[in-house]
């Protein structure tokens, strides 16, 4: 069965089992590997993508639920890689291994969308679903504040 959806502004018709998690449809079928696998149980936030303005855990989100919707992944967050969050991430050299950062950046961009000037507590609330084993949390907080300043 084909699932029709828009990914990063481009139309896709994916011939997949509708129950397949969006994560694997993106990675193995659509060929977009920027969204990563971390736990498979909605516990770590690494696979976060944006579906019609909402951040979802793509590892447990059936691809059929994204039918007819707009999916934004890390590859499509900005045209040139210069979303304020991406720029701030680079200016503060946030990544260590970098593997969790696509999910972190998707979550951070959504946070700033609804709250352009978040406090530390707001950031902790919004970002505590995103695990980072390298331990970049203090820099992520600082980078979100920086992105908020830069876009204001």
């Amino acid at each position, binding site marked *: 069965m084909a699932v029709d959806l828009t990914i990063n502004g481009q139309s896709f018709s994916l011939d997949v089992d509708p129950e397949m998690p969006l994560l694997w449809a993106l990675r193995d079928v659509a060929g977009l590997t920027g969204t990563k696998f971390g736990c498979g149980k909605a516990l770590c936030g690494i696979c976060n993508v944006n579906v019609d303005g909402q951040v979802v855990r793509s590892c447990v989100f059936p691809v059929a639920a994204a039918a007819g919707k707009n999916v934004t992944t890390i590859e499509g967050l900005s045209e040139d890689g210069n979303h304020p969050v991406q720029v701030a991430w680079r200016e503060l050299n946030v990544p260590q291994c970098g*593997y969790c950062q696509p999910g972190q950046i998707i979550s951070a961009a959504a946070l700033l969308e609804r709250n352009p000037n978040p406090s530390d507590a707001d950031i902790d609330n919004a970002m505590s679903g995103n695990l980072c084993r390298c331990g970049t949390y203090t820099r992520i907080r600082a980078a979100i504040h920086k992105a908020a300043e830069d876009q204001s």
Partner: protein
Amino acid sequence: MSDMERISRREFLQRTGKAGGGLVLAVTLTSGCQPSGQDAVDEASVAPNVYVNIRDDGAVEIYCHRSEMGQGIRTCLPQVIADEMEADWDRIELIQALGDEKYGDQNTDGSTSIRQQFDLLRTAGATAREMLVAAAAATWGVPASECEAREHAVHHATSGESAGFGELVAAAADVAVPEEVAFKSADDYRYIGKSIDLIDGFDMTTGQANYGIDTVLPDMLYASIERCPAVGGTIASLDDAAARAVAGVADVLQLPDATSPPVFNPLGGVAVLANNTWAAQKGREALEIEWDYGANAAYDSATYREALAETARAGGRSVLERGDVEAAFGEAATVHEAEYFAPHLSQAPMEPPAAAARMTDDGGCEVWACTQAPQSAQQTVAGVLGIDKSKVKVHVTLLGGGFGRKSKPDFVAEAAWLARETGRPVKVTWTREDDIRQGYLHSVSAQCLKAALDADGNTTAWQQCTVFPSIGSTFDAAATGPNAMELGLGMTDNPYAVPNMRLEAGDAKAHLRIGWLRSVCNVYHAFANCSFADELAYLAGADPKDYLLQLLGPARLVDPGEDGAEYANYAQGLDTHPIDTGRIAAVVEKVADMAGWGRVLPDGHGLGIAVHRSFLSTVGTVAEVSVDDAGKLVVHELWTAIDAGLVVNPDRVISQMEGAGIFGMSLALHGELTAKNGAVVEGNFDTYPIVRMNEAPAAINVHIMEVDAPPGGVGEPGVPPVAPAIVNAYFAASGNRIRELPLRNSGLA
């Protein structure tokens, strides 16, 4: 050139002091009069050695032979080479090297890349620079000593001649590789010591960075493997009909059984291969397998813990002896004993083990893997396939974290074996449960400590017995206990100036695969040592920081060999990398100062301090904690000072200390794996939690000590002092002493 330090080949060999270093030099710099290096050097470039290739368009290709897993080596390695060769940073093209012995030691573990290879990398850069200078001098007919390489060009001041590196490529091809090279003076460093931005920063923030799990090959099958829950178990019966019926499943294959010892070989099991990962996982869930759990079927971690503690209480073989501890205990005003325990842990890198492989037309195999050890991967794949390792090509991807897990290439060999059996490219992706349950676990440990204090509160005797199953068991089925290498990780290198000391090791048999985890045995040794030192301070009625300095004693160089220990000092010399209690004390003073040690704290808050030398660097940590209304521990702030000698990229050192703070908090607060009936119980981040942002301190403050000394390790040494600093802070806040990890078992997390 007079202020340059000339280094000859012989000296270089002596300095590196390791077969690996010597091998590299032999390979890279003894190619007679013709430059050698990369296999396929085209005529428009020159490769002075295997790490550098200069193209005639002026681009400098630098080969990174170490794996990037978050420590920043893909930025720091070219920093060193480019600096020595006076190459312009913007004209560097970084190429990730294949696994190949021509690069020497590629194992990215033990925090070794800079501490062991700084001179190697400098030599690689300096060789290139001197050849370009010689080429320019020959072209202009002037003495090389009058020429200078600067900013990607060679200059001759007298004649005003100047030529870019690219212009000199053709002439450099005729220049002999120099017998000896000169290093730049540290005053002239352009990149070394500078916080250069991450070379992969753009890719990592835009989804373009490629990890092992991201490899896609034409016609590739996706595999998920069900392995026996107990190490060494075998398949009693298999019904794969339901699995084969899952849409997308292409094949089901039984892997060869696990080996004993396990080494880096696959664990066996049943692989489901499909046209996408999800179908493979669904097929795997549909497998009906009965296992024979084998020799480790009865392993129960709770029972085992008691056995470890019993062994520690009974005492073990002596591994270091100084003075007469028995006499000191007899004369003591106070004798204090304590038992410490720390559990099994999983490295749990956010990218689980993953690798892709395909067979090549010549009967070889090509793999793409997030491996810390490309040459081990090459060997293991060759062994499993029964082919020569020269026929195995290992592409190293970025690693989504490593922490020691990806030093073991079992998952790479799984992919290779399946590629051969199916005749198609195969990618193996471990699930999180596979990773947490069936990896190479950090060892469980029990320790007994006993100290004597005189009437003035001085510690006059220190006795400690450590018991844990050895990493050696992964390579030798007969290994029964700690080996000298492991004991050198925070046990026999005890720096305390206690006149009577006896250190012992007790045997323990392994029932799971045991492996390295970031800072390895230093985790539990530092936890016990730094906590027990804090206990003694309170017994003596002293301030913990003052007492720590008293234990460290006068500034001196400690040689554990003088007290009978077999001590390797992380495979580097005590002459270049001493156990210098003066430097350790300076770290204590600095970190205490940073934290405002002694200041008036808010009600219910406590400060704790710990210092530990590992991987040839010393890290001191202070934690400020309190207990919230729900009875949970809150870590408000961490302060860290590190003496790592010379530092290549300060920001990467700071980031490693920040990360080590969080990694250390995770194991202090939450980390524990248990086992029942031979199988690990925990399986994902719900049962094996790691610290989340809402638990992260408000700040992790880092200071890098300015010390004129060769580089020490950076990736690991930040971890060991974190847990004891937190436990000591909790004692300061509450008066309760916790002697076992994780703190959640004491209701604190």
